[in-house]
């Protein structure tokens, strides 16, 4: 690349011409792929999405799920999504911001959903994750527990589990833990 040296001169001229220009914001490949995911979202009526930082920051958003069946009918659950610049090579980080009595979501908002961690694949997308989260509310699963107590109750005494969920969503204590109203 002996031309390099001539190029060098040309580049210097360009750089001089470019002086005083505002730095140009680049979009990472991850942002572009996310843009595609978001523009193709097809959410069920029970799920909605919002962008707290406005229309130009898609990398941080929130999803609200209002289950229309099952134990969690009537509740409103907020999830935060944080997407990395190398998305979809890496799954988004998802946390549940609403304190919930749930076998697969712990009291700190960690979510045990296989496609968020060990089973994430780049062919999956944001829509898949949201459906996965929705599924956790219609089909809570005691076999992959994060909240051990809730899982044991669901397994051994579904009636009690149901009333515990109701109590937590209405705002109140289940055992030693206080839950804020989310209905």
């Amino acid at each position, binding site marked *: 690349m002996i031309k390099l040296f001539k190029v060098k001169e040309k580049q210097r001229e360009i750089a001089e011409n470019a002086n005083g220009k505002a730095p140009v914001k680049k979009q990472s490949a991850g942002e572009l792929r996310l843009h595609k995911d978001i523009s193709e979202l097809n959410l069920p009526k029970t799920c909605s*999405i919002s962008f707290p930082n406005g229309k130009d920051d898609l990398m941080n958003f929130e999803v609200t799920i209002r289950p229309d069946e099952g134990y969690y009918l009537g509740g409103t659950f907020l999830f935060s999504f944080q997407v990395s610049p190398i998305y979809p090579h890496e799954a988004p980080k998802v946390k549940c911001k609403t304190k919930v009595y749930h076998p697969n979501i712990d009291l700190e908002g960690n979510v045990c959903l296989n496609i968020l961690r060990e089973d994430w694949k780049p062919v999956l997308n944001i829509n898949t994750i949201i459906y996965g989260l929705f599924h956790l509310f219609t089909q809570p699963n005691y076999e992959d527990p994060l909240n051990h107590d809730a899982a044991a109750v669901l397994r051994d005494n579904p009636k009690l589990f149901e009333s515990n969920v109701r109590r937590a969503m209405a705002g109140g204590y289940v055992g030693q833990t206080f839950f804020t109203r989310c209905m």
Partner: protein
Amino acid sequence: MADAAPPSKSRDLDKLLLRPGNLVGPSFEPGVQLRDDLQEYAKVLVVGAGGLGCELLKDLALSGFKNLEVIDMDRIEVTNLNRQFLFRLEDVGKPKAEVAAKRVMERVSGVNIVPHFCRIEDKDIEFYSDFNIIALGLDSIEARSYINAVACSFLEYDSDDNPREETMKPMVDGGTEGFKGHARVIVPGVTPCFECTIWLFPPQVKFPLCTLAETPRNAAHCIEYAHLIKWDEVHSGKAFDPDNPDHMKWVYDEAVKRAELFGIQGVTYSLTQGVVKNIIPAIASTNAIISAACALETLKIASGCSKTLSNYLTYNGVEGLHTKVTEFVKDKDCLVCGPGVLVELDTTVTLQKFIDMLEEHPKLLMSKASITYRGKNLYMQAPPVLEEMTRSNLSLPLYDLMDKVPKDILHVTGTINKDNKKSSGLRKLRVIFKGIDGVTDMDMAGGA
């Protein structure tokens, strides 16, 4: 010609640079001029001053490069000293870039190395435009992806979609993990770029959270439990800082307790650091092999004295020794290094009209397009909340929405209707506005 050359410090290098050959690069012009130009004009940026970076700086300086710069955001830690040979015990805590530059300059006369103690994202694009070649000694996909995007942003294509050689910013990338390593040459527009082949990187191992919470089976499970679950439980709201020794110690102590509870062996402080910070084991000699290959490729690209690696070398010393060169191919639709579809427009075309045109464009045939321009979402078809926020742009001229730039890159996503089949697609467009003076000579990356 070699006989005519004045005696030189670079006697051995002269054998490569001053004499013609048959196995040389396409534009090789041997001679004193080449050697001197190489020393005077070739400017190389080394990204990373760690295990690979130390080797790269030393190798490049000893290969006759005189103008080097190095960028690294880290400070020296005690654990670096076994392989990052430019650093001494008394350097612990000092910026790697500064110490590495100083040490190589002390040892190799005539070389000038400018250190940059900062994040790669802190430098603007003009900083990177100044270098002829960028050599990467990094340990993360994110950082490689970022530098790749920067280097590819200088690339321009002519109206026939051929890359313009004078806008190419070659990269040489090295990486190691234990006994394994790779070295590759990336010439944007010619070879695949980093993004074309991102699938080469294995996904990071992530344990299921419920395994961590319920059925830990090994030391790493105990450490990740303390790091991902227990930390939040105890320090509600306080973020874990992997560079804070107190935080790391806390995670280690909790992991030990967890391991005792489940009768698991093997939790140590260094394993805790390794798991939490995702540290990959590094071996000095693997770094040396890979960096040496990268430094030689850098010399070959700059001088043309030999053909370059084409384009991906893997080195595997785990069982016996296997090494192989694979010629990966470009993704012609790559969003980062590909030419994109050329679209010429009048400055009066509104965003709505533009979206309609994409449906008819023979190379696109895209309906329901959403448009994004340098991080600004000009129009989003979905979800409704974003559609509403961007709808008012539809009646505005695209030229105005693109800040009256005569030509630039846009990205569109939508439904592609090809051969009666519908598929969703994401495309890069090269938009040129007609009737703006001096367009052809403008720099695409700067977006003048």
